[in-house]
């Protein structure tokens, strides 16, 4: 299954980077969401996958019995999902405001602040 996940991750990265290179700001935000998913799955897979064994300490035991899923990548991803959502929500509202002000969703027309004379 790892190989399959590797391909899924590669596809998600491809889709994310491709979307971030588009002109519509909404597509750029979709690209951002793709990258978040891809990175989460990457961390998850690199920590190795174990089918159906969550890291719980069973009643009466003092530690988790092997085999079980690695808890550390899970803790990291949990944080990443939440932060990713924060970024996404902020980006969407920022887009809405920008669209209101500028009247376009074309990133190519939003570059005047970055240019030097």
């Amino acid at each position, binding site marked *: 299954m*790892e190989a399959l996940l*590797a391909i899924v991750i590669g596809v998600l990265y491809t889709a994310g980077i491709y979307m971030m290179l588009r*002109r*519509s700001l909404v597509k750029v935000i979709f690209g951002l969401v793709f990258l978040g998913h891809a990175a989460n799955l990457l961390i998850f897979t690199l920590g190795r996958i174990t089918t159906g064994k969550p890291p719980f300490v069973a009643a009466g035991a003092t530690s988790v019995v092997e085999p079980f899923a690695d*808890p550390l990548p899970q803790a990291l991803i949990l944080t990443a999902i939440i932060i990713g959502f*924060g970024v996404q929500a902020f980006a969407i509202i920022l887009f809405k405001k920008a669209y209101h002000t500028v009247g376009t969703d*074309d990133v190519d027309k939003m570059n005047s602040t*970055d*240019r*030097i004379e």
Partner: protein
Amino acid sequence: MIEVILLSFLSAFLLPLFFRFNKKLPGIISTLVAFFLFIYFASTLPTILSGNVIKESTPWFPAVGINFSFYLDGLSLLFALLITGIGTVVFLYASKYMEDYKYSARFFVYLTSFMASMLGLVLSDNLILLFIFLELTSVTSFLLIGFKHEKESSRYAALQALIVTGTGGLILFAGIIAIGIIAGTFNISDLLSNQQLIVQHSAYGLILFTFLLGAFTKSAQFPFHFWLPSAMEAPTPVSAYLHSATMVKAGVFLLARMNPILGGTELWQNSLILFGTITMLFAILTAVKQTDLKKILAYSTVSILGTLVMLIGIGTDFAIRAMIITLIAHAIYKATLFLISGTIDSQTGTRDVTKLRGLKDKMPITFATAILAMLSMFGIIPFLGFIGKETLLDSVIRSGLYFPFLPIIVFVSSVFVIAVASIVVLRPFLFAFKKTPRDVTEAPFRMWIGPALLSLLGLVFGISATYSLTSIVNSVSASIFNFNSDYTIKLWYGFNLNFFLSVLIVLVGLVFYRYRNIFIKIVSHSAIINYVKPSFWYDKFISGLNKLATTQTSLLQTGFLRHYIIIIMLAFIVFVGYTFFRNIPLSEINPNFNSTTYEKILAGVIVISAFFVVKAKSRLYAIISMGVVGYSIAIIFVLYGAPDLALTQFAIETLSVILFVFVLYKLPKYQNFSHPTRRMRDFLIAGSSGLIITLIVFYVTSIQLQSEVKKFFSETSLPIGMGRNVVNVIIVDFRALDTLGEITVLGIAAIGVFSMLKLILREEKN
């Protein structure tokens, strides 16, 4: 000594408080501080002159050998006395001169901070500490040159001085670190006891180079001298103090201090003599052409600094003594002449020598002071300058180095010194009075008393040299040579060669002064001089640097998000791809394709919905496909033992879809599409990046993993974290601070979303 330096800094920062009380107080208080410091250092004279040194150290970063270590010997005491003694005179003068300036408190804060930094510099026993104080003098000098910051020329001059001396200082820092690595100590006093260590090391040439650059930029040696004449933009007391008597001698001090550690080699001797001589001659030739009093004095200061560097380079005990005497004599007469140029400026309204004539009757005291200073600069017996000139000629001839070129160059530049002194003093004061922009009156008391005392000191020291100067000069040369010398200084050595040369110099100089216009005409007609000017190249360099910055910024910062991402991804593809294919043989990549049917279906669903998102024509369609991707990933989490992640992912995905729909459903369809070739290019970049990541995951997952961390968390979760769900224990216990940070980020994002939403709703209402 650390208390003394701290006290000076403290008093500098307290001055603005007194300014609120009374506008005249900062000037008076800083004068008193300088005078108190002078008394303090004078009181250590008996100890130092009897051959002792005072050492003090307060730990700072003892682990890396950086401490507040101070070292008072003959050399540092001489400088400390010059800094505080001339400082007292300058502060007193400035208390009157700067009285009507709006920001006079600020001025005294800078000037007192400079004095403290300069004292720290000469007293440092630790090279790192010395470097810090050296840079502090550059910074305070920058603030003082740019004091009239509303003038563009002031700002330009201040920046120029900072760039030149600051760059030299940073290069010097590299040499200091190299010494620290080689010798294992930054302490000058420890280095002195191990003199051959650096000189015999293979990096000696490089270290010497850094020290020479540091010293030459600071002491305005050719080709770095140009910042000093520009620095004349500063108020005149600053020019007298920093840019003549003290700060510009920091480079000379550094060379003298390092003479026992870095000196004594042919490389040292030749570089110092070469640059010193060029500076000495070039600067005094330029001085003659100037018409601004301060510029003339500035170029002649550069010339003297060259002389001092040359003398350290010659390095015989005669030369070192000549260096010390010239240094003292110059500090006294040049500070006097600078202050007088300030007096002339403020009393007449101009500093242009072509407009000044016959001031002697209007300003008799200033005239007398100027004459005394001029005679010392001339080198007339019995002034201190006479002894300086005699010993200079004596040591150059006696050393036999580069005979006869070196004596001839010294002779020629001495002739020009006479002409310069005459232009500065004789021309404005003698002959019939010429009307000036302001009605001329004698200077106020606080502005003539200091210069008058200083110029008398030049006479007193000359007459009493045997008794007043012998012991201090011997003590200073002992620090420079690191052994005790016993030599008696005399005013009169009889009618010898040096005396006749001295007389000849004065006579030729006066004749040259009379006919200087012929020389000036010849020099100013040669256009090539502009290309020799280092300041020309400095301007070229700075404007070139600006152009380079503009070009590379507009190249990289195009304003198109796409370009930034392409640059980042190309760098990823090239560097990570290259490293991967270079180091990992393809045979070691063994991906595990075993999977059940429903796993295959799940992967297929993700890939297909990702494709739909990319290809979707409407936003709503894309949002729904995006949701499918998210839910599918949540199912992956369910399958592989991560129920917490799955729960979170389901919740978040639902919220995302709602948010997307809420914000985006009203918008029109996509409007702008890229050209197909551009889409092809983008796909290639994105696809290559994705492929590299897939290959990396293939490779990593084909290696067995033994995680100590996994074991640790699973065993400690219950006993230490008191929880059976290990992931939750990590989140709220082991990595609780991370979670706190995460909550904070989320809170900030929520505030941002909320306030922007309110703004949008308000706009929609209107």
